[in-house]
């Protein structure tokens, strides 16, 4: 059977359904009549579907078909988690594709074992030190919060916007999905002359997930933003970010040629064809870091260009004259995206910067904290008190909370 005849069958199915409703236009009625006249089998089919109980009986049989076994089989072959029954919860480790799946499964197992327990390598005592709290301001963990800024400067608060169509920009529709994710859906060819730009930005204490018009998935960490055209055109897909973002770039063709995807992060540009990577470009961090999970990327910073391999991290420290390529702990790099804080011999100040961004608090330092390192992991959904208690468990530092201000001092 040819491609074209399958197209026709699907089209005819639509016409038959319309004919049952007496909703055929004059042209469609002629098309359907022509199809019936072509073969006796066609006419018979069209007549049979409205006769007797066949359709109702077949529908009933399909309704009674239990797909549980089929689902279990599919999910066990593909290694995806199987969700049974009516309830569906948001997956803990969200949306990993293909090769990354096995890695993600390993991460889930690790966390099931570790729970949200904090392991402090240097911990000598396990006496709980309460965090000194004065003034009763409730500090809550961050959540899915973001603002969409349209090309005309108008803004939509995404966390409170209702699901469904949020905005229409040129040919593109902006849709908030049921899980709170934002998706762009272009219906027609882009206007190459006048691209329309949107920006999604997260505040401190926010994070957000977006599907760009080409299907590329973007996870934005707190205090971050991404600017992109509502439709990609030409042979390059350019976006601009601040803060931290994780990308799952889809491969995309324009006139039969694979188009590049270019991320501009504070003057560092990352060029890819289709791959998964994380970019950390917070201006208050000590370096710009691009970490590749799979595929390949080309990084350009101030005229220096390099290719990095999966598992490697491009790192350009502030004030440095050249870049380094490291092999970091990927779990630690992607922890934020997976709803975790994970530290591996991480400096106290780096940890506190993350805390500041996620819990929307200001940190004040009383005394030097350099050289104080921590290792451990905890859920980003946990309260700040729990996290701070764990950090001061071995009595090397202590915290005092006043409203949204946290003072930290060495002991």
């Amino acid at each position, binding site marked *: 059977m040819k491609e074209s005849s399958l197209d026709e*069958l699907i089209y005819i199915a639509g016409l038959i359904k319309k004919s*049952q409703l007496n909703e055929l236009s004059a042209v469609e009625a002629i098309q359907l009549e022509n199809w019936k006249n072509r073969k006796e089998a066609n006419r018979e089919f069209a007549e049979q579907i409205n006769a007797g109980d066949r359709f109702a009986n077949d529908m009933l049989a399909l309704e009674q078909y239990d797909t549980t076994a089929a689902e279990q089989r599919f999910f066990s072959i593909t290694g995806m988690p199987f*969700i049974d029954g009516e309830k569906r919860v948001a997956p803990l480790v969200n949306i990993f594709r293909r090769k990354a799946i096995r890695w993600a499964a390993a991460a889930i197992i690790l966390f099931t074992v570790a729970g949200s327990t904090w392991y402090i390598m240097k911990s000598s005592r396990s006496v709980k030190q309460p965090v000194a709290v004065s003034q009763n301001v409730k500090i809550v963990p961050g959540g899915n919060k973001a603002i969409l800024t349209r090309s005309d400067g108008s803004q939509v608060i995404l966390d409170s916007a209702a699901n469904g169509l949020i905005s229409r920009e040129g040919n593109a529709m902006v849709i908030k999905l049921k899980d709170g994710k934002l998706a762009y859906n272009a219906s027609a060819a882009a206007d190459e002359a006048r691209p329309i730009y949107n920006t999604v930005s997260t505040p401190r204490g926010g994070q957000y997930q977006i599907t760009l018009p080409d299907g590329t998935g973007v996870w934005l960490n707190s205090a971050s933003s991404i600017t992109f055209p509502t439709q990609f055109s030409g042979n390059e897909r350019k976006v601009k970010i601040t803060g931290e973002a994780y990308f799952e770039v889809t491969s995309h063709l324009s006139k039969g040629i694979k188009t590049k995807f270019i991320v501009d992060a504070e003057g560092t540009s990352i060029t890819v064809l289709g791959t998964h990577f994380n970019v950390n470009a917070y201006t208050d961090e000590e370096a710009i870091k691009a970490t590749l999970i799979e595929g390949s990327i080309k990084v350009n910073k101030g005229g220096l260009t390099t290719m990095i391999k999966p598992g490697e991290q491009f790192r350009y420290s502030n004030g440095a004259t050249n870049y380094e390529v490291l092999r970091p702990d990927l779990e630690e790099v992607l922890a934020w995206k997976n709803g975790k804080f994970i530290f591996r011999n991480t400096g106290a100040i780096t940890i506190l910067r993350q805390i500041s961004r996620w819990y929307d608090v200001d940190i004040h330092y009383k005394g030097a904290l350099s050289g104080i390192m921590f290792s451990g992991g905890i859920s980003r959904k946990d309260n700040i008190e729990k996290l701070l208690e764990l950090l001061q468990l071995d009595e090397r530092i202590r915290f005092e909370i006043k409203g949204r201000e946290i003072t930290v001092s060495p002991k």
Partner: protein
Amino acid sequence: MISAVNDHNCLLLLKTNENAAWQYLIRIYFPVLFRFAHKILKDEGNAEDVVSDVFVKLWQQHADFDDWHQVKKYLYTATRNSCLNALRSKQREKARHESFANAYVQNEDVLGNEILYSEILAETRKAVYELPPKMREVFILAYFKKMTNEEIAVYLNLSNQTVRNQKATALAMLRKSLQPKFSLPVLAIALTLKDLC
């Protein structure tokens, strides 16, 4: 049953490989494709194997589909081709006289009409699945199982009036939700039956 995913967002969610989207796809299409495969293979175990493989292959290739039309084409074509291949290898093993019976199901017109019918069934399934669970149950009992309002009322422990209301609302919802997108097989059945709500 399928709360997080519907026909509109399934494609977007497939792109990000969300298992709920795959579950939706399997729940809607597996029974329809199984029925189709069974028509050709006349063997339940083989039909299940073939259709299972169709979904796994779709997942492996991770074809980036832009619209439902492409997904449907993939599902129907892959199921048909796998069935025919399975049939041919079986034919080689078996006695010649059996291939005569198989010639019927390998006829292009017969296959084409089966795909056409599968498509009508699948689209109707999607429409019915968009109804709220209780209403869906009433609807299926009324229009597919052909139970009377009284029978449904007793069966689901509802009042007669509630059953009538649910049926009327279901029809109204189907009319409303389906009209702009595609035509309305479910409503068509309802009209054909000339049911009295």
